[in-house]
């Protein structure tokens, strides 16, 4: 008699479990898993959304590897992501350490607000604002640079300056995010350890490199991955400020995907580009699992 009763209970638990997850699972299948599978299939077709889709096999992918604009976009995106990771991590960490030392409550409050708030503003507002701030005739950057004798370029229309300018705007916008993550990470570094190192005669420099940094490595690692993945998908400032130009200087991979899919309506090719983005992000995420063991100091 025990076994059927236990089996019945098991069945009821299964049923209850599936009932609880079913709404989310259904939505997951319709809006994430289904589209994912569909996108893989779509990449094997040519389709402009007007005429019938045409099966082309792997042609979209061969086109992908021979496309000079795609290569340019990939290089821009990697350059952007690399610069973004380095600047965010270095400035975010240094700022967090510095702000953490500020004992004055008002100054500390002001700094946290000033550094973090830009992160909450939409990319749309940030892009429109900075387009004016860096404008040679409208903006105040050119004016003050002129006062000290620096002739500023026309940042967003100069092919040499457009990408660095976007990198800078992105730093202003999202530094607050890295800063907050670093501040949280700093709270996990025990002050007793720092004190012990100081008692043993360690200089601030030594303490930073030998104590704080290793103890912060889990945070640094996560922040690097999160910043990289976010930066790799950069789209809004590029689309709004430069529209990928001048001369493709700021065309990123997601910008290219948008052009192909939603302006040229070459859906199959856009799906192939999107799959490439997916493969790169997956590679970075998997690298995370491997790298974690190697680089991160775990207590």
């Amino acid at each position, binding site marked *: 008699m025990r076994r059927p009763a236990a089996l019945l209970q098991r069945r009821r*638990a*299964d*049923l209850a*479990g*599936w009932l*609880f*997850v079913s709404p*989310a699972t259904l*939505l*997951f299948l*319709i*809006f*994430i*898993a289904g*589209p*994912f599978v*569909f996108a893989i299939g779509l990449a094997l077709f040519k389709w402009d*959304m007007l005429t019938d889709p045409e099966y082309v096999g792997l042609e979209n992918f061969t086109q992908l590897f021979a496309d000079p604009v795609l290569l340019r976009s990939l290089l821009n995106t990697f350059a952007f992501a690399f610069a973004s990771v380095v600047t965010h991590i270095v400035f975010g960490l240094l700022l967090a350490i*510095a*702000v*953490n030392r*500020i*004992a004055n409550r008002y100054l*500390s409050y*002001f*700094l*946290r*607000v*000033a*550094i*973090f*708030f830009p*992160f*909450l503003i*939409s*990319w*749309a*507002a940030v892009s*429109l*604002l900075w387009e*004016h*701030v860096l404008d040679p005739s409208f903006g*105040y950057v050119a004016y003050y640079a002129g006062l000290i004798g620096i002739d500023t370029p026309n940042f967003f229309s100069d092919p040499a300056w457009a990408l660095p300018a976007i990198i800078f705007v992105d730093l202003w916008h999202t530094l607050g995010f890295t800063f*907050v*993550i670093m*501040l*949280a990470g*700093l709270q996990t570094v025990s002050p007793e350890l720092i004190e012990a190192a100081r008692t043993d005669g360690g200089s601030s420099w030594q303490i930073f490199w030998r104590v704080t940094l290793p103890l912060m490595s889990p*945070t640094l690692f996560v*922040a690097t991955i*999160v910043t990289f993945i976010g930066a790799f998908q950069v789209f*809004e400032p590029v689309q*709004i400020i430069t529209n990928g130009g001048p001369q493709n200087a700021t065309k990123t991979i997601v910008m290219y995907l*948008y052009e192909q899919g*939603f302006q040229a309506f070459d*859906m199959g090719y*856009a*799906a192939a580009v999107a*799959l490439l*983005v997916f493969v790169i992000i997956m590679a970075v995420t998997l690298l995370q699992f491997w790298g974690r063991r190697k680089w991160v100091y775990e207590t």
Partner: protein
Amino acid sequence: MTVTMQPERAALVDRADLLTRVDRRTRRRSRWTDILLGTVLFLFGVLMISPLVWLISTSLTATEAAFGTPPNWLPIPFTLDAFSGVFEYMPFAQQFINSLLLATISTVGSLFFSVLAAYGLARIEFRGSRTLLVLMLSALMVPAQLVIIPVFILMRELGLVDTLAALWLPALVNVFQIFFLTQYFRTIPRELDEAATLDGAGHWWILFRMLVPLSGPAIAALAILSFESSWNGYFGPLIFLSSPEVMTLPLGLVVLQSGFGSAPAVVVFAAITMVVVPLLIVFLVFQRQFIASVASAGLKG
């Protein structure tokens, strides 16, 4: 689980740190470096907010004086004309309501379904629960731009292009929320469920009367993040929406500057100010919650 910022504790640690230092010379030197550090950081903070000060000041300056040289850090001559201009050039109120509707429906809806799913995954060990969680976790690696292409085709088939539903329907499922809440529920002792079950409580009671109230900070953090991301979202609205009266504010702002019959720069600045200032007020009130939610989910994401 949740990593909350503890500024008070940090300040206390700092002060304790200062008190334990016996060497007078070290203390004197550190006071001077602290003043120097404070000054440099203050200037840095001023530079960080300078674009926002300039934004607000310019939007309050009369058109002929705005964007002048030297830059207007104060609104002289003062006028509110640019703000009334905003309502002529864009349906601001309608777009505000659209943004609010979209963010509210997405946040409340996704959290409701995530809470249900997380309960099933964390508390009921049913056949397939592990596979399901792994499947959903792997979806975290899938970029939104990949999924949005087929979703666009689907919405076109359903005739939902240029409606807000095209944006909030896909937002009802949030894999990150499900994962985060599942982990959070697991940190709450199971003995509580068992005690409640003995008292005759069902799943529904355990979840909504016990686990949800106990997960307040986690749910609040997820709600802030979800609201913020749909309030600020641009890619989705850009692809799905084309009529000004259906658009959300971020897209509305960009169209205001670059669309047909684009507005003068001061009007664009006034519109940005109208988006940024309320946000700043909300942020100043809930500063701690905002920072805590980003810190906790940022570390887990």
